[in-house]
């Protein structure tokens, strides 16, 4: 049976229409760019290659290894796809995978697919390739460790974007969803990093000529390094900021009109993110975040284990 390797596929209903449309617009433009760039790079072989690679990523997501206590590590594949195929082809391949997961298996919704593609297909490949490209001339050890870090960061970035979309849709408060998503995915990202490094090491050992860095035409420009670095910066800066000062971020977002008041009760800031008995202190906010991570993370892992046992 199909099951998703990471709990990042957002179903329909959890994002507001506005957020869904904005994400679709972003994804569509980036995909459009990817299409025109790939045409130039790979030539006639691109269609069978990307097609089979998409099936590869889908199948590879089924490979697991036990981590601890019944959980297992998996591969999402964004970083790996970008490193072996090049950034643009990697994006198209991941888009196809996410599209089929949503269409055929309802793993991720249809209206929110733009967001899912953005989070799991575009952001992940951008970071994965950007960071890897930055060390492209270096020794194998450096490249492999960078690939691992890039893979971990790609998962974290996807999680962060997902969390932000959920918050902006009014589905989950910022102070909880960010620590929860990032907390859960910090561990999952570790699994991603390990498999990505191991797979890459295998490929470098057996057919290094197949990697995108070998072919000059598929290689992305230095702009990718900037893109990857920028997203990394966003992840690194926003996550702790949002966790510890969600109110501030919310205030900014409301002032800029990002959060609509929703169709029901207005979203007032102050008593939102604190535990009632602790009052409005930073400690309370952090505690709420920590509890959120604990509760959501534990439950997700339990459910994941339960589903895995059934299939």
């Amino acid at each position, binding site marked *: 049976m199909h099951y998703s390797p990471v709990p990042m596929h957002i179903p329909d209903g959890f994002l507001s229409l506005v957020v869904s449309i904005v994400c679709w617009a972003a994804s569509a433009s980036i995909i459009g760019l990817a299409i025109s760039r790939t045409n130039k790079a790979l030539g006639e072989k691109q269609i069978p290659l990307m*097609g089979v690679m998409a099936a590869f990523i889908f199948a590879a997501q089924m490979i697991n290894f036990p981590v601890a206590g019944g959980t297992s590590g998996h*591969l999402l594949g964004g970083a790996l796809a970008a490193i072996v195929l090049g950034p643009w082809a990697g994006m198209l391949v991941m888009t196809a995978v996410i599209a089929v997961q949503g269409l055929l298996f309802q793993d991720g919704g249809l209206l929110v697919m733009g967001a899912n593609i953005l989070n799991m297909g575009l952001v992940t490949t951008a970071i994965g390739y950007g960071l890897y490209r930055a060390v492209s001339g270096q020794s194998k050890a450096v490249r492999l460790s960078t690939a691992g870090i890039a893979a971990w960061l790609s998962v974290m970035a996807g999680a962060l974007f997902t969390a932000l979309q*959920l918050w902006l849709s009014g589905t989950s408060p910022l102070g909880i969803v960010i620590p929860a998503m990032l907390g859960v995915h910090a561990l999952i990202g570790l699994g991603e990093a390990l498999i990505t490094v191991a797979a890459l090491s295998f490929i470098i050992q057996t057919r290094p000529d197949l990697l995108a860095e070998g072919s000059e035409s598929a290689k992305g420009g230095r702009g990718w390094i900037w893109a990857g670095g920028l997203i990394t910066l966003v992840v690194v800066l926003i996550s702790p900021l949002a966790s510890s000062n969600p109110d501030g971020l919310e205030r900014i977002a409301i002032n800029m009109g990002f959060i609509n008041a929703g169709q029901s009760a207005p979203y007032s800031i102050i008593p939102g993110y604190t535990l009632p008995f602790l009052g409005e202190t930073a400690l309370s906010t952090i505690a709420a975040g920590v509890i959120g991570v604990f509760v959501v993370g534990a439950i997700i892992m339990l459910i994941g284990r339960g589903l895995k046992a059934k299939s």
Partner: protein
Amino acid sequence: MHFNAFDRYHEKESFLHRLDPRVKALATVVYIISNALLPDGAWLAFISAWIFLIAANLLSQLGIGYTFKRSIIALPFALIAVTILFSMPGKPVFTFQFLMWQPVVTDAGLLRFVSILIRSWLSVQMAILLVAVTRFPDLIHALEHLRVPPILTTIIAFLYRYLFVLTDEVIRLMRARESRSAASAGNRSGGGVLWRAKVAGNMAGQLFLRSYERSDRIYNAMMSRGYTGHLYTLNPHEMKSSDYFVTAFVVAAIFIVQLNGRL
């Protein structure tokens, strides 16, 4: 050995099965958008939308509870929204003991949470129905008609075609690993996490190589039949009068649902 878990299509000769795939795809998307537009607590609209869904279930001849049974899949994600119960400001409804805390569930929170669940549940069922009454290759044609870029639809077509082949290879790789995952008395078995990750990575790498080489052979096969870089396809779907009728009906039904949402 057939891994039929990847086939979501159920063969029947129902009215829905015979509809043009474009109509079905668009109807599904419009339904989901409609759900997203419904405000929290729009019970009348939710019920109307649900009736629409049930009617579709019946028309598909797949049984009235067909989509309901398969809709549990979206459940785990609902946990993300659980926190909205406590954090939306409003009148407290009830409070309970969780370890040493007493989270308070508010009325606004409860309303939003339940509404999210209902919208999501309705939408996922329509998506389930879509692939149950439409063959996936036809769905791909529908995407082509709806102006999805051909390179994407082609990649999706290849993905679908080789899904079974490659997952079959993964299963064989995993079985081979399992067959060699023995334990000897007195020793702790399993290897370290790093070693296990390396094995998994090798499997992925192996699969990648085989896939790459397979794509070379497929490319040769395509070239042997005249492929020179541009893919031609036939789009064998033509809209019949029943398709137009259904489109109009869906638009009207969704309109009514939306009206109910504003009452």
